[in-house]
């Protein structure tokens, strides 16, 4: 039960959504964009957030896009921010994204939880981001200043870097990313339905390894300097994994689920397993 009142708006276009936000903010209603609602409804119940206005983006066609579009000389996969994770998974448009999403929450929750919600939410894991960061996706944002497209690593730096009143509309990625060999691994403490101690995505383009990881740190991370180490084929996969786990310039999380040392250990083992799998896939 949500104990306070909200205004619920359901715009039908990006422009209308942006206008709704500006209007509600102008009235002091503390608006938020709302998609699947799985996080906002539970956070409202526990008092973690208290928005005055929910702007539901599910009725916006751009936010429901799911498929392949041609343009600018290249095919792009398009994922609307309002598409549920189960639709993303079942589409199998981008296998690494399907693998990352199919371990988020549980099957029933994924019938409501959306791609945009996972990326823009407050939980630190945001595992859908991993293949998008590693694969060089682009984020389409709509706001008072118009529509802009940002590379994933510019659009996400510890959080979604959207301006006030700006809405995540779509995620786009070159179709050629679907041809890259990939590896995904997830480790939990308390069984399959649990937050990850580690969620790792590796993509290989030629000899170059791209890596994004979640659960180990306070937010998802893609680190190019570590990717250089991981791509050094003069070293064995085990040596590369050990060097990367020691070199990564981020503090491993310490909490009741696991120590930082244990998370680092899992990270090294997962890298070793992933590098070997990608070598075998040549």
């Amino acid at each position, binding site marked *: *039960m*949500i*104990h*306070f*009142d*909200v*205004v*619920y*708006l*359901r*715009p*039908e276009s990006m422009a*209308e959504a942006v206008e*709704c936000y500006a209007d509600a903010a102008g009235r002091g209603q503390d608006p938020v964009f709302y998609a*699947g*609602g*799985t996080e906002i*409804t*539970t956070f*409202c*119940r*526990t008092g973690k957030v208290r928005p005055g206005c*929910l702007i*539901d983006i*599910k*009725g916006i066609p751009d936010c429901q896009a799911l498929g392949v579009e041609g343009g600018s000389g290249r095919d792009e996969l398009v994922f609307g921010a309002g598409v549920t994770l189960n639709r993303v998974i079942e589409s199998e448009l981008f296998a690494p994204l399907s693998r990352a999403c*199919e371990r988020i*929450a*549980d*099957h*029933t*929750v994924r*019938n*409501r939880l959306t791609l945009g919600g996972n990326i823009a939410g407050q939980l630190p894991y945001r595992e859908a981001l991993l293949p998008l960061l590693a694969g060089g996706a682009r984020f389409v944002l709509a706001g008072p200043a118009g529509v802009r497209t940002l590379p994933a690593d510019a659009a996400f730096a510890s959080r979604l870097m959207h301006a006030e009143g700006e809405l995540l509309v779509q995620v786009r990625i070159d179709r050629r990313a679907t041809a890259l060999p990939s590896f995904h691994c997830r480790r939990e403490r308390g069984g*399959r*339905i649990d937050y990850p101690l580690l969620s790792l995505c590796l993509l290989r383009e030629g000899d170059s390894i791209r890596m994004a990881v979640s659960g180990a740190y306070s937010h998802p991370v893609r680190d190019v300097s570590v990717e250089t180490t991981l791509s050094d084929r003069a070293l064995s996969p085990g040596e590369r994994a050990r060097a990367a786990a020691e070199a990564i310039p981020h503090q491993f999380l310490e909490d009741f689920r696991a120590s930082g040392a244990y998370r680092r250990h899992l990270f090294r083992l997962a890298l070793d397993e992933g590098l070997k799998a990608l070598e075998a896939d040549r």
Partner: protein
Amino acid sequence: MKRYEGWVPLTLDINGEKRETVVRPADTLLRVLREKLGLRGTRIGCENGDCGACTVQVNGEPVKSCMVLAVEVEADKITTIEGLADETLKEAFIEEGGFQCGYCTPGFLMNAAALLARHPKPSDEEIRVWLESNLCRCTGYEGIERAVKRAGGAPPQVPNDRRD
């Protein structure tokens, strides 16, 4: 654009009937079903999206009604345990001992019915992935799994605790 503010009249399509009520936009589907429409077969559990006791179907898909606002589903077809027509599944739960205290049973039934509608003969993996959305605090998972398999056409199985 739709706008809901204050107390609003709402018509929901539930179990094939149009049901009229008055809600606040912040009211969850779970609370509206139980407290406004008297459909108390949908259980209140954690209200946090964890336990699945409140599972209903929206357009045939299982959802946790504690995480859905009633105003969101005004245009959708909602099915609750009161409207579940799958007698084969219900019989299988009885025959295979698919419940103990029974509190979680409506949620499991709604989820399992959606699974069987999508995958009439579900694999072990499909059963596990779909049903791990629901918790049974009596831990009667084996009976539930047997029931779903039986409803999917598998032959009756002898439970471990009834073997010689």
